[in-house]
């Protein structure tokens, strides 16, 4: 049994994703605790390996079938790495790639899997994962027994690691199975224009009647742009025709579940709450300390939104 921790690197274009660094940070921590190595598997053209300093090794496999993310090819390649390197733990993102590969490898590599993990820790001999189930209503602490394990980690729950230095690059020969594929990518779509889908956003800057007038919308847009989040709104803003219906949160609008919902000048009427109460983090700004929005918000402030929004925008822009 090795004490290594393996992370599967994900790339958007040539850029290694944030979630990879989050996983790598944890891999480093656990590997250090076990006295093993933190390794990263990188498939396709090996560019990006240089961004992975901080890992002990980058395991590369290149093959035409791996030039795009093809679930089947990645699974084959990753299983190959797992059998070759025999790590103690495989860390995957709990997003598309992890959802494709984690559970399949749990069967094929015969290792227990902890899905929706928000944290992992070593407790004596055991590896303990904290996972978030039932829509975040329950946290479960699970012990991953045996000599190998897999965890898929929810993005944003771990601090990302800042890469430093450079890692050893190990290139493995592609396994033969990669030549026979039952799957192929036909087309890749980049996010397009049109109106944003507020239900798909990770963060929303949401405004209510407290914004006062249409002219003040600029404040919200500026902040939203700085944060890279779309603007959503309560119904009165949509009614007034200041924003399109596609931005309305609530009973007669859309239900959203972002990772963070920033509410400015929204009182928190039940019809509105219905649409956003399951956001993971709700921060509300309302000058009325008794506004019902504070009953569902995790954090609140009674600072005037006209002061807070510009201050935030400025700080984000740095």
């Amino acid at each position, binding site marked *: 049994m090795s004490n290594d921790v393996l992370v599967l690197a994900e790339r958007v274009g040539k850029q290694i994703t944030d979630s990879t660094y989050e996983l790598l940070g944890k891999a480093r921590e656990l590997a250090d605790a076990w006295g093993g190595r933190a390794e990263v598997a990188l498939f396709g053209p090996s560019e990006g390996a240089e961004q992975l300093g901080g890992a002990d090794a980058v395991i590369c496999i290149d093959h035409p079938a791996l030039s795009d993310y093809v679930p089947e090819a990645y699974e084959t390649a990753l299983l190959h790495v797992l059998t070759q390197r025999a790590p103690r733990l495989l860390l995957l993102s709990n997003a598309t790639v992890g959802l494709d590969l984690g559970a399949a490898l749990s069967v094929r590599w015969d290792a227990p899997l902890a899905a929706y993990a928000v944290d992992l820790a070593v407790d004596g001999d055991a590896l303990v994962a904290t996972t978030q189930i039932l829509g975040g209503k329950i946290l479960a602490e699970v012990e991953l027994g045996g000599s190998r394990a897999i965890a898929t980690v929810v993005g944003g729950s771990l601090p990302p690691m800042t890469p430093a230095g450079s890692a050893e690059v190990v290139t493995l020969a592609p396994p033969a199975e990669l030549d026979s594929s039952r799957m192929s990518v036909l087309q890749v779509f980049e996010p397009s224009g049109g109106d944003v889908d507020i239900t798909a956003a990770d963060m929303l800057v949401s405004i209510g009647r407290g914004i006062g007038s249409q002219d003040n919308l600029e404040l919200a847009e500026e902040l939203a742009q700085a944060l890279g989040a779309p603007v959503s709104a309560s119904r009165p803003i949509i009614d007034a025709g200041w924003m399109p219906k596609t931005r*309305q949160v609530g009973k*007669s609008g859309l239900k959203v579940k972002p990772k963070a919902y920033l509410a400015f000048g929204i009182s928190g009427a*039940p019809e509105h709450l219905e649409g956003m109460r399951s956001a993971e983090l709700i921060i509300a700004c309302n000058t009325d300390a008794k506004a019902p929005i504070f009953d569902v918000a995790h954090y609140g402030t009674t600072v005037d939104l006209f002061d807070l929004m510009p201050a935030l925008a400025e700080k984000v822009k740095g």
Partner: protein
Amino acid sequence: MSLAAVLAESVTRPVFQDIGWLGKTTFYVVSTLAILVFAWGWWRRAAKYRRGRPAGRAGVLRAGLFGRPFAGVRRREDRSSVAAVAANSSIIRRDRGTGIAHLLIFWGFLTAFMATVILTVDYDIVRHLSRLITGHEASFFHGPFFLVYTFVVDTMGVALLAGLVYMGVRRGLRRPGQLDYTRAEQPEGGYSRGRLVAGDWVFLGLLLGILVTAYLLTGLRVLSQDLPWFTVFSPFGRLVADGLAGLGMTPAAAASVHTVVWWVHAALALGFVAYIPFSKAMHILIDGVNLLAHDRSATRRLPAPAPQKAGYSEIGDFTWKELLDLDACTKCGRCHDVCPARTAGAPLSPRDLILDLRQWVDTSAGGITLLDRETRTDATGPLSPNGHSGIAGRVVSARTLWSCTTCMHCVEVCPVGIEHVPTIVQLRRRLVDEGTMDPTLQTALQNLATQGNSFGKSARMRARWTRELETPIKDARKEPVKYLWFVGDYASFDDRLKVNSQTLARILAQAGVDFGILYEDEWNAGNDVRRVGEEGLYEMLAEHNIEVMRNAQFEEIFTTDPHSLNTLRNEYPERGAAYKVWHYTELLAHLIESGAIPVRPLGYKVTYHDPCYLARYNGVVEAPRRILAALGCELVEMGRNRADTFCCGAGGGRIWMDDSFLTERPSENRIREAVQLDVDNFIVSCPKDVTMYGDAVKTTGHEDRLRVRDITLLVSEAMVGPVDPPGALVRATA
């Protein structure tokens, strides 16, 4: 001539004056033809009605004809009667001028018609029969009978004329908005209702033409007979004769013109007879029947879906009454005028709905209206081909059907007893079956199916609002109570309304009322679910509630929600749960008046909004007003009050649907009406109203001028005696 001559029965008038045998023969042939066309037209219509399902209206018809002679004459009642039809009460009730004009036309026309019948009986039956039997031609059309006849016909003709002129002026010059036939829903390919307008004028014109030629005929005849004395019995005919004479017409000239006018009159009259079943004129025959078969409680207590069917999709699904409804509409526009959906800019107008369905049914059944139809360049809406893909969503668009708040105002004001709402619901049932609905409505229905409430909250949270009460509310499932309080979804789950429910509980407890609730076993009563058209879900909810109520011990029910009240009071009995059901305002009024709740005067200036389901559906209008009076509040009524109240827009499941496409929400329209009154409180007695109007005062910017308050809060404020300081009964919520 002397009285003796009269008594000698020599005064009469010739029936076919100067019409030779050829003329007579022609006349009889043409009359027969006209009557045949008339009969054929009605036979076609009757065949159409016979395609409809039984409507279960035999009892209603019987009662209307024989049972309650004066039902509906003075006051709107669920049912009508011959007397009410004869008195035109349903037309006069909401528009005196037009109603009286119609009454004049109604009786004027009936008199003219009867006059013709009498003449026919005398001339074509009595005369021939007597000749066959006795060998002599007998006639009763002379002497005193003739004089009375002449007088009545002559004066009633003027009544008819007056009515027609009034209507013509109204339609042509005054042009009230309700006679504007612009559609509420504008079809993409355009449309024209020019032929509808033409139909109206042809109808009016024909009647006028017949009448004018009739007077002209009398005048000419009188003149041609050299003005015999007894023609004073037709004073207006005589007037015409005098006029003609004044213009220099000689008796001989009159005699020759008479023949021409006679033919014109005959042609118009016979043409009209043939025209009736193919035009607006059919309402003459249909509407009396439709009123007698009308049952307003069919809206309150919706009919079941057609057997083996989920809603209407073809002509055979309609009941004969519903098919008759379609033909009965006179396009008076009253429903169009009051409809909150139409007012709000929704594509629904109850008038258009009826007209579209009429035209489609007519066309599908063979196309038998001549003028009175809409024209379009494409085969959409009422011109849709008769196919299997149904009516809902095609003849009447889904959006239109979903716009109805089931406020019942159309049924209330329709002078001819049309029942729009049941038809709308039957068509919605079809939409529900096809799954054509707003996503928000779908979510609400799914929530109702899994948790028994539309909020998507756990059923177990239903009684959570009671937790903060010092004295727990009795559990009617476990101990006997006098009143079962059916709280309803909004009053139970909406955080803003918690206070109202808690306050009511506190008031009742202080007044010593023995009441309990069903806790998590109360499910949505289903009133709006049923009106949405989700009959299966309604059944499920009702069955559950009835089962629970059977196992609970109570004597009577009161509800917070007027919608629940409606179904509990009117629809649950059919399912075997017949209880006395009160609204909480009725209970409060009783408690205040009996002294159980001592109150002090508040002196507010308020207005009161009647909820549709309380006032219009169930006639509860006085209890809340009695409370307000007892509380010493000055009540300033809005123009639209009591049975004529304006809908808040939430009913019929609309509260679960998107309303962003409306140009002005009905609730905002209502608030604008109320702010005109210069009152400071807008009092409501329905939980949904608190949310709807609370929202509307904000969106219209009248938040600081008008407070929207449930009547419960006023009562609580006015309570005297051992009043606990506010909050004392509310446990600290640390």
